[in-house]
């Protein structure tokens, strides 16, 4: 494996650190009872969106899941606008109307988190169709979970993308659980990548705890897509450190030992160690990045809290309202 260039390494680290800082800060706010509705933390999985989105620009598309904060950040969505969104403020990226499960910024090619498991795969496929029809080398990425790989939309989307040779990368974030359900129960194959055989497309497994492995394999898939050779199914084996949502206690369905095993391979810590050992980046500059990420979150929370909530008029905007006329 070739080591990416310094700017890329720095971007990968910064992105992972920003995601983690964001998720931690958000968790803190949720625990303080601020945003109702909670949210799904992606702590532990930072390497996946970072390694994939490193290959994308604002002109490429991402369709995301209920666990979407990391995808947003890696796709370049403004962190302050995100925090304001999660706190339901009018300055949120969705003006406070979407919240965690529908956070989006179409101007960045981020087509939204999605509260319906499996629902984003057709969306990403359609974005891939746009890319193909436009012919400008854009690429579309769907992130989805191991659980989502059992939805019918997975099958229909991969078949469509395969027969139409669409520039889509289907990234399965296999964190081994769908809520409390272990993947070995829900899923009839050991590796989800194996399902690529049903579509005659490449099925690739990456170590989702190793950002460089994800980066390399996603790079190949994105390049293949940009060249017009069609879709790839990329399975990233990863782990969420916390519960399914913030109030969920994961020890009801998995062992502490299993968790410790993954935490010992923490993507950020491992990267730091390797970067120092390989003299790619210095410990100081990485610590500075981390500090910077945490202080950005302070700023983001302050920004959000200083922002007003939406006005009541916003209830009826952004949708044609026909009935009852102006009475709702």
């Amino acid at each position: 494996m070739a080591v990416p260039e310094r700017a890329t390494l720095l971007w990968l680290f910064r992105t992972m650190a920003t995601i983690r800082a964001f998720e931690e800060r958000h968790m803190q706010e949720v625990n303080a009872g601020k945003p109702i509705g909670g949210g799904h933390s992606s702590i532990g999985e930072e390497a996946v969106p970072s390694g994939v989105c490193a290959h994308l620009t604002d002109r490429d598309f991402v369709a995301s899941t209920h666990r979407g904060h990391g995808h947003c950040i890696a796709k370049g969505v403004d962190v302050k606008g995100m925090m304001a969104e999660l706190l339901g403020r009018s300055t949120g990226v969705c003006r406070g109307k979407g919240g965690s499960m529908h956070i989006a910024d179409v101007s960045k090619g981020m087509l939204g988190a999605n509260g319906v498991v499996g629902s984003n795969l057709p969306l990403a496929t359609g974005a891939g169709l746009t890319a193909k029809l436009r012919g400008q080398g854009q690429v579309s990425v769907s992130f989805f979970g191991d659980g989502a790989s059992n939805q019918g939309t997975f099958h229909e989307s991969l078949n469509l993308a395969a027969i139409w040779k669409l520039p889509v990368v289907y990234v399965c974030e296999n964190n081994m659980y769908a809520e409390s359900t272990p993947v070995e129960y829900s899923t009839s194959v050991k590796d989800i990548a194996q399902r690529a055989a049903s579509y005659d497309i490449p099925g690739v497994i990456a170590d989702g705890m190793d950002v460089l492995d994800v980066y390399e394999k996603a790079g190949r898939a994105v390049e293949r897509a940009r060249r017009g050779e069609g879709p790839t199914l990329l399975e990233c084996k990863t782990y969420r450190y916390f519960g399914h949502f913030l109030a969920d206690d994961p020890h009801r369905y998995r062992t502490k030992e299993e968790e410790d095993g993954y935490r010992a391979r923490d993507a950020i810590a491992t990267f730091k160690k390797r970067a120092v050992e390989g003299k790619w980046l210095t410990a100081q500059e990485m610590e500075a990045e981390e500090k910077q990420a945490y202080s950005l979150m302070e700023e983001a929370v302050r920004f959000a809290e200083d922002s007003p909530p939406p006005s009541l008029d916003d209830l009826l905007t952004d949708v044609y309202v026909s009935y009852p006329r102006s009475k709702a």
Partner: protein
Amino acid sequence: MTTTTATRQITYGEAEREALREEMRRDPNVIIMGEDIAGAAGRPGFTDAWGGPFGSTKGLIQEFGAERVRDTPISEAGFIGAAVGAAATGMRPVADLMFIDFIGCCLDQIMNNAAKMRYMFGGKSRMPLTIMTRIGAGVGSAAQHSETLYSMLTHLPGLKVVAPSDAYTAKGLLISAIRDDDPVIVCDHKRLLGRRGPVPEEAYTWPIGKARVLKPGKDVTLVGISLMTGVCLDAAAALAKEGVDAEVIDLLSLSPLDDEAILTSVKKTQRLVVVDEDTPRCSLATDIAALVADEAFDYLAAPVKRITAPHTPVPFSRVLEQAYIPNAQRVVDTVKGIMG
């Protein structure tokens, strides 16, 4: 706006094809996707084998090619969801859902993505998606190919729903649907597709949200939807012979609803009968009745009546199917019952 001076007669289906052709010429972002909309996809020597199960897209692939007139596998959630994704990223797709009865295969994409994205994203996205689909009983296709069902979609915020009643409105509404930045479902009654009517050659729009009065009258308001508009006209003609002067409103748009047109008419006639081929519960028929019972209450001289299909699936046997569909006689009898 309620009539046309055109003299050229074409069928409802041809009118829709013309709408598609004109919009595809006008805007390169317009594409069509659906099962067998060209046919024989990818088979050398066999272009345009079907041109759509109802011929609505016949001839388009020759002019616009297979990239823009795109046959799909049988994967309604997949390809309609892909149309949603394409619409969110700058295309203006028309997706063909062969029969509205198949809505359950793809409703999630329509209700959770297409209908909600603009609102959920704080107005920062557009969803210029059109879905064409076929409704209605009467051709012996039984319970899974004969539903009307538009009431279910009208229930959903974020969707616009229209149901043309003739070739003229079919072309105008389809063009409006394609140009609209919100998702629009166009419900075509299978028994209207072959009917001829005057249609201008050039592109024109019929505004979404606008009903029309097809026959003015002073004694009772009949609201018709899709095929039922013709049933209302037949009933009005029969009633005229008996001295009852019925006003016939052709609803055309189910969502948004032209409540002004309905209220204005009922305030004049003081009586309302809604004729709707859909099943009765939580339907367009109840919707319009409820509107009037609230906002025109003081004008009403008689109970508000609804004539609908019964609350059953569509039966196969012809005798039962004919009894299932509302007809002019039922309208006449109902009107007489409230004229007293």
